[in-house]
C-alpha cells in the first residue's frame, strides 16, 4: 500500500462545499432542495412530534418513564426558562419556548450523530428563520401590550436629558431591532458551523497525513483521538447553544413586557 | 538605503497593537469583580453594574481599533 489518497472521497482541507451535500433525489437540477439536510430536518420534526405524542398517550398521575422524561423536559422549559425569565406571565410562552428549545436541540444533535454528522443549523437559513420568529414574537407582544407608539417610546427612548436623545435613539434602534435577531441567528449558526468544521479538519487531517507519508500514522491517531474529544465538547456546545437561544428569546419577551423604567 | 520595509496591510499591525491595552483592561475589570465576589459574595449584586460600565469604557477602545482599521486604511 503506497498510502493512496482518497480513502475518503473528500479533499483536504475541507471547504464550504462540505456544507452543501448532493441531492438525495433525482429532481432539483442545479439547486437541489432535497438533500441530507432536508431529510434531517424532517426526521427531527417527526421524532419530536412522535416522542411527545407517545409520551402522552395514556397520562397517569404516577408517570411512566417516557411520560416522566417528557414532563421533565417541559418542566425545564416552563420553570427554568419561561417563569424564571418572564415571571408569572411566562406561562403563556412556556410551550413555545420549550418547543423552540427541543427543536434546536434535536437539530443540533445531528452534528454528532453517526451517519449524519452535520447539523441543519449550520446553514444560515435555519437559525435566521428562528431568530426572525423570535423577533416577530417579542415585537408583537410589546405592541400588543403597550400600543404601537407606546412600545416604540418604551423601547427606543432611554432615560436621558432631552438634548442627548438624538444621539441615543439611533443607537437604541439599531441595538434593539437589528442587532438582536442578527446576533441570535449568528451565534447559533457560527457555533454549529465552526463545530462541524473542526470535526472535519481533525478527521480529514488524519487521513490526509496518512496519504502524505505513512510515517505520520501516530499523528493521525492523535488527530482522531482529538476528534473524539471534540465530539464531547460539541455535545456541550449543542445543549448550551439551544439553551442560550431560548433564554435570550425569553429575556427579549420580558423586556418587551416590562413596564416603564 | 532601505534597511527594512513592511509590505501589505499596516492596518492589521495597528489593530494588533491596539488590542493589547483593552485586552489587559477587560481582564483587570473582571478579575476585580471575581476577587471581590470571592471575598464577600453578597456584594456581587452591588458591584455588577460597575462591571458593565468598566467593560464598556475599556471595550470601546478595542472597538475603535477595529473600526478605524477599516475607516482609515489606505
Amino acid at each position, binding site marked *: 500500500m503506497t498510502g493512496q489518497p482518497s480513502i475518503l472521497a473528500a479533499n483536504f482541507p475541507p471547504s464550504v462545499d462540505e456544507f452543501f451535500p448532493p441531492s438525495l433525489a433525482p429532481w432539483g437540477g442545479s439547486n437541489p432542495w432535497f438533500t441530507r439536510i432536508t431529510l434531517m430536518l424532517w426526521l427531527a420534526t417527526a421524532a419530536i412530534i412522535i416522542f411527545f405524542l407517545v409520551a402522552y398517550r395514556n397520562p397517569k398521575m404516577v408517570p411512566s418513564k417516557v411520560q416522566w422524561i417528557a414532563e421533565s423536559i417541559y418542566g425545564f422549559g416552563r420553570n427554568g426558562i419561561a417563569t424564571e425569565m418572564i415571571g408569572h406571565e411566562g406561562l403563556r410562552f412556556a410551550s413555545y419556548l420549550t418547543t423552540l428549545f427541543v427543536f434546536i436541540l434535536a437539530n443540533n444533535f445531528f452534528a454528532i450523530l453517526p451517519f449524519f454528522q452535520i447539523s441543519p443549523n449550520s446553514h444560515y437559513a435555519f437559525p435566521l428563520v428562528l431568530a426572525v420568529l423570535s423577533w416577530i414574537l417579542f415585537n408583537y407582544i410589546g405592541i400588543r401590550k403597550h400600543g404601537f407608539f407606546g412600545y416604540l417610546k418604551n423601547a427606543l427612548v432611554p432615560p436621558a436629558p432631552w438634548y442627548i436623545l438624538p444621539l*441615543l435613539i*439611533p443607537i437604541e434602534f439599531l441595538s434593539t431591532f437589528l442587532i438582536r435577531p442578527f446576533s441570535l441567528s449568528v451565534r447559533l449558526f457560527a457555533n454549529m458551523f465552526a463545530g462541524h468544521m473542526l470535526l472535519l479538519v481533525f478527521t480529514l487531517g488524519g487521513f490526509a497525513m496518512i496519504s502524505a507519508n505513512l510515517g505520520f500514522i501516530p499523528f493521525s491517531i492523535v488527530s482522531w483521538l482529538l476528534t473524539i474529544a471534540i465530539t464531547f465538547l460539541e455535545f456541550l456546545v449543542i445543549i448550551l447553544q439551544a439553551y442560550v437561544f431560548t433564554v435570550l428569546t425569553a429575556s427579549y419577551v420580558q423586556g418587551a413586557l416590562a413596564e416603564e423604567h | 538605503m532601505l534597511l527594512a520595509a513592511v509590505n501589505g496591510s499596516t492596518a492589521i499591525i495597528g489593530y494588533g497593537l491596539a488590542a493589547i491595552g483593552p485586552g489587559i483592561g477587560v481582564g483587570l475589570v473582571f478579575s476585580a469583580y471575581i476577587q471581590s465576589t470571592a471575598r464577600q459574595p453578597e456584594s456581587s449584586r452591588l458591584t455588577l*453594574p*460597575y462591571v458593565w*460600565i468598566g467593560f464598556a469604557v475599556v471595550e470601546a477602545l478595542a472597538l475603535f481599533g477595529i473600526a478605524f482599521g477599516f475607516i*482609515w486604511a489606505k
Partner: protein
Amino acid sequence: MTGHSPSEPPRDENDRVPSTNQGMTALSYLIAGIAVWGFIGWLVDRWLGTGGIAAGIGAVLGAAGGVYLIVRRLGA
C-alpha cells in the same frame, strides 16, 4: 423536576450572574453606537469631502453615546 412549582418570586434579570444577557446588551450598545454614528460620520465625510476625520469623530461620538446608554440602563 416535574414536581417543582416556581417556589421563589420571579427575580429580575440583574440577579442572575451567569446569564450573558447583560453582557450582550452592553456589547450591542457599543457596537451599535460605533456603527451608526461612524456610518453617519462617513456620509458626512463624503458630503464634505474631508479625509476620514468625520467618520472618526462620528465613531467616537457613537461610542460615547453607547457608554452613556450602558451607564443609564445597566448602571447603578
